Every structure is written in C-alpha cells, then in structure tokens.
C-alpha cells in the first residue's frame, strides 16, 4: 500500500509539473494574444530592436599561382595545410596574384602567410599551431 501511495503521489506531482511547465508560458498563438510567445508575431516586430554589427571586410579571393621549386616548408600535416614555394621563398600558405600583377604569399588573406611554427589550415582558413592535427 505504501509503495502504491508513493507511486500515486509521484504521478500526481508529475502531472502537475507537466501541466504547469508544458502549457502556460510558451504557447503558439494563432490569434493576437497579449502575454504569450508567438512563433509568428501577429504584431509587426519592432524594427528598432534589430541590431547590426559594424561591418568588417571579407577577404576577396585572388587568382592562385602555382608553387615553383622545392622550397615549400615540410610540415607534419601537409594535407591539412597549405605550403608552397613562391618567388623562390618558402610560403606557409599559397601564392596569389593581385590586380597589379604582384605575386605574394598569403594564408587566405593573411599577407605573407603564416609565421614559423604555424601552418595555414585548410579547414579553419587561418594560421594555427604547426603541430595541431586534423580531426577526421
């Protein structure tokens, strides 16, 4: 009997919890219904509350040039990294040619490529520590 009554109490508590948590605060309303969250607002959302970050600048892709020579840095994870030999100099990144015809090393917009001890990561598009492994 004791376990039965405990079970009954627990069931009642669970029912109460369900009714108070699942129903009131967050229900969709088809019609205007002040005080409830609407998935689709029946009142036009206030545009003044919409925020926009100060804009940055997206790196523009430039035509890539081929690596020439054998001066490209040799890395532990070559397939996850971009390395090349550009204008006879080792490049932890890849070579691009800009509108003026200048050829230089870059790691997805980081001019000069990555510094010693870092590698140009093909998935993150940034310089990461040279010993950071791929994840797959």
């Amino acid at each position, binding site marked *: 009997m004791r376990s039965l009554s405990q079970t009954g109490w627990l069931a009642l508590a*669970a029912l*109460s*919890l*369900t*009714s*108070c*948590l*699942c*129903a*009131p*605060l*967050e229900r*969709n*309303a088809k019609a205007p219904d*002040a*005080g*409830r*969250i*609407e*998935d*689709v*607002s*029946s*009142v*036009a*959302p*206030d*545009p003044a*509350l*919409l*925020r*926009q*970050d*100060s*804009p*940055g600048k*997206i*790196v*523009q*892709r430039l*035509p*890539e*040039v*081929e690596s020439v020579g054998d001066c490209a840095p040799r890395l532990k*994870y*070559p*397939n996850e990294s971009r390395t090349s030999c550009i204008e006879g100099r080792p490049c932890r990144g*890849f070579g691009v040619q800009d509108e003026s015809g200048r050829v230089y090393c870059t790691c*997805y*917009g980081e001019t000069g490529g990555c510094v010693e001890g870092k590698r140009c990561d*093909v*998935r*993150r*598009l*940034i310089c990461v520590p040279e*010993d950071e*492994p*791929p*994840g*797959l």
Partner: protein
Amino acid sequence: MPFSSASNSAPCASLAALLLLAGCATSGRVTGRDETTRQGAQAETDATTSFSRGIYRVVVGFNDDTGQAAIEYGPTSRTVLRNASLMGWSYSEDRGNTWTYGGRLKPPPGWAVLWGDPALTTSKTNYGLVFMSSLAIPDGKFPASGISGYLDAGQLGGACIARSTDGGVRFEHFQCLTNTTPRNPAWGLPTRGNFYDGGSMAAGPSGEIFAAYVDIDRSQIDVWRSPDGRQPFALLPPPFPHYYAGSHPRIRVAADGTLYAMAVAKTEDVDTQPHALIASRYRNGAWEEPKTILWRVALYPQVDLGGTVLGAPLKLRTGPQFSFDVGVASAEPPDEDNEGVVRRDSVRWLVTQQDEQGWLFLRGGVCDETLRSCGWYEKWTFGAIASGRRTRLDVFNPNVTAFQGLPFGAAPRWQASFLVREGASTTTLGLTRGTLGYVNGQPLSIPVDIARAVPVCPDQRPKGEAYWGDYDGFLPVDVDGDSVRFLRFMTDSSLGCTKRWSFLAEHQHVQAVSYWY
C-alpha cells in the same frame, strides 16, 4: 512578468524549481538498444521524415562505426581499410518512440570508403524517396595498405548519395559526386577529387533535390542539383565565388522553391574570429549577390569541459556553428518603403560567437526573404553574455527548424535547440530548446532544458579535437491539434564511458530527445 498565466501558480513554480524544467521532454535511445549497434559507436546525425505505402517514418542517418573488420583500432592507432563505411541509418515507424537499425551501406564501385557526415532529405513530390549523403574516398586516392591515423584532404575526395524508394527502410547508391577542378582552373590538370567536408541536403517543392558540401581544396561551397530526384545531380555555379568559404554549409528551400545557402567566409579582421556568416539564394537559375549576416562568428571552436574522464581531459571539437531555416513570416509593419529595415522575418538563424572570456554564446536573428536586410535580436541571445553569468557557460551547436503549419491545423512554429556546458569543470552537457518568438512584437525566447547532465564520452584525439559527434538533426515529426512534436538528436553515452582511445570511445550511441510544443 509579461507572459504569466493563471496556471503558473506558486506550487507549480516550486515543482519547477525542484525538477528543473526537464519534465516536458522524453529521451529515447535510437542505437545501442540492440545487440548489433551496442557493439560499436554511432554519433553525428541528420534526419528527415517520409511516407510510403501508408507508413510514416522518421529516418536518421549517423556516423555508423558499428563493429566492422575494415576499421582496426588500437589504443593510439586507427587503420582504415578498403570497404570501410560509416554510412548507417535507423528509422522509426511510431514517430520517434522506437527505432529499427537500417544497416550500413558498402562503398559503391569506384569508391573505397564511405566516411560519414550524414545529410538527409525527402522529395517533396514523392514522400517515399529519401536521400542520404556521406563523404567518400575514391579508389584513386586510397592507398593499397589502407590509411593509418587521421583522414584528410589526401584521401577524401567527394561524397556519395544513396536513395531509398521505400521511405527509408532500404537504401541503394544513387550517385557519387566529385569535383576535380584545380584551385586555379587555368592550371588545366584535373585533381583526383577535391576534399569534400560537411554535407547538407534539401528538397524543393517541384521535386528538386539539392546537396551541398565545402570543397576544402578550393575553399568553395559546391551545391549540386537533381531536377527530380531521378535524374543525376549536376554541379551548380558556386554561391560564393569571390570569397574564401569554409565551414560545413547548410542549405534550405523556401516554399516558393528559392534555394538558400549559408556558410562562413574569411574576413580581414585581425582579431581571433576572422570569419563571417554569409548567405546567398538561388533563383531563376542563378545565385544572387551574397549577403553578410554576422561578423566575428566561430568556426569549428573547441569546447573545454574542464573535467576529466578515464584520466584524460574532456575537450571537444565541434561542427557547423550556425543554423537557419526559411518559414512563415510575422506580420509586416505598415510602412514598407524604408530602405534597410527588415520588413519580414522569413529567415531565422542562430550562430555561435565567442565573448571576451572565450566563452561561446549564440546570437539569433532574422533576414527578410530577399536577404537584403538582416539583423540580430538581443532577446534571442543565449549564453553568459545574455544571462550575465560569472561562472563558465558555453552554448554551442545550434539548430533552427521551422514548422510551416497546417491548413486548419497546427500553426507555424520556429524552434531552436543547442548544447549547453555549465560550470568551471564538468563531464556533462545539457540540451536546451527555445522558441525564436515574440510577445506583442517584441522578440523573446525562453530557454527550456530538454535534457540535463548528459554524460560526455569523446575519444582522445589530442589538441582539443576529441570526437563525440560534431552535429545533430532537429525536426518536427508529429502534430496533434495545435501541438507539434519535435525530435532533437544527440550523442548518448549513458551506458557508461568505459574506453577512451585515440580514435575510439565507448559508449557512443544516438538518442532522440522529444518534446511537444
């Protein structure tokens, strides 16, 4: 309290405080219940629904490492042999309550290995046609001795799409996709197949099927289209041709057939988050000018739980850190002529950012359907930056799903879900949901925990790259009157964390957390 109601009484509040808001959700194991899947690991999901021969199904694909001879593990090693496959799936015929393991596909001819990253969708003109995608290694990039250790661009070289004609019970290979364009097309020589990562699929109202991947070699998003799910997929022009694009992409199709793609692009910011969330849409056979949605977004951040399990630290890698959907818009303001003001909120999104302490939080916002105007709401922000918490709180792996509504039935819904890591040191994660909604036109979202203290058991890949499943599916699966049932999948290690090797952890299975709303 602007959203109180009569039933929200003091006793209820006490109960709520005691039982911590988890009572509305139920969790069920998708894999790991049967002897077959219990013997291996399954994690990382995408899901869809189908209807075939009178049976409604929920179909979930996952990285399926259920025991196989073609993948050999040691405490610090992994060797992947020919015919290895991670392309597995399960299906439910009772709307997510119980699940049947569908099996695992073998690689098709010409392809050596199927390496996961599931993406699924269902045809909108034939609900029995279900498509499932997996990354793949072509024969031409696979060494005869197999692959020891990590897999990367040296091996991965495309993706294979399988198709089911019976609503997800059986799948057969449909087509493998590969792009052999070199980084500079002027170089001429084709590659052996560029490294595809991620995977996202979507279906259009006229039967079109789309699949998208990030081409890591070219830093581009590739989107493929089959006009009807029967003819082969063909590569579309790139959505972001002038950017260095990264991250697993996500695609969605609006009710009018417009295709939307989002990804992450490299920015010139010199801080530690030089990435922006970008979007474009494909209409009338062409992509429109890309739009930047938000600056300084996280790209594959690592989540340090601070705790240890089996003597090793818990530091997780993550997958795509943004999500969006296209659905029913709110009422429009009367003055529609002001330039630069969002008039509609047909596109709603969440994206992960990092605060000054390095803690992860989510920003939520909207775009109009043209993507000309986008912005974020303070009240759709989740994490320490929103709550003012002083102890560590990371919020990540966001999902957004829109339920379009039914005529004379359930009204449209906009739901979000995400993972939560709380405290200075922990070995568990929580799963939280919220409505991306409004009260009297003021944006508001109340986070509700739907799974708490979920134990985490990743493998031991070093440098914060430990794997516990990178992303998961989230979708509506049932309707009852004006209530809609949602399923959010996540990794399940409730059978215990008994092994953490470099490339293998036990137990990892798939669970489905369900709630009505």
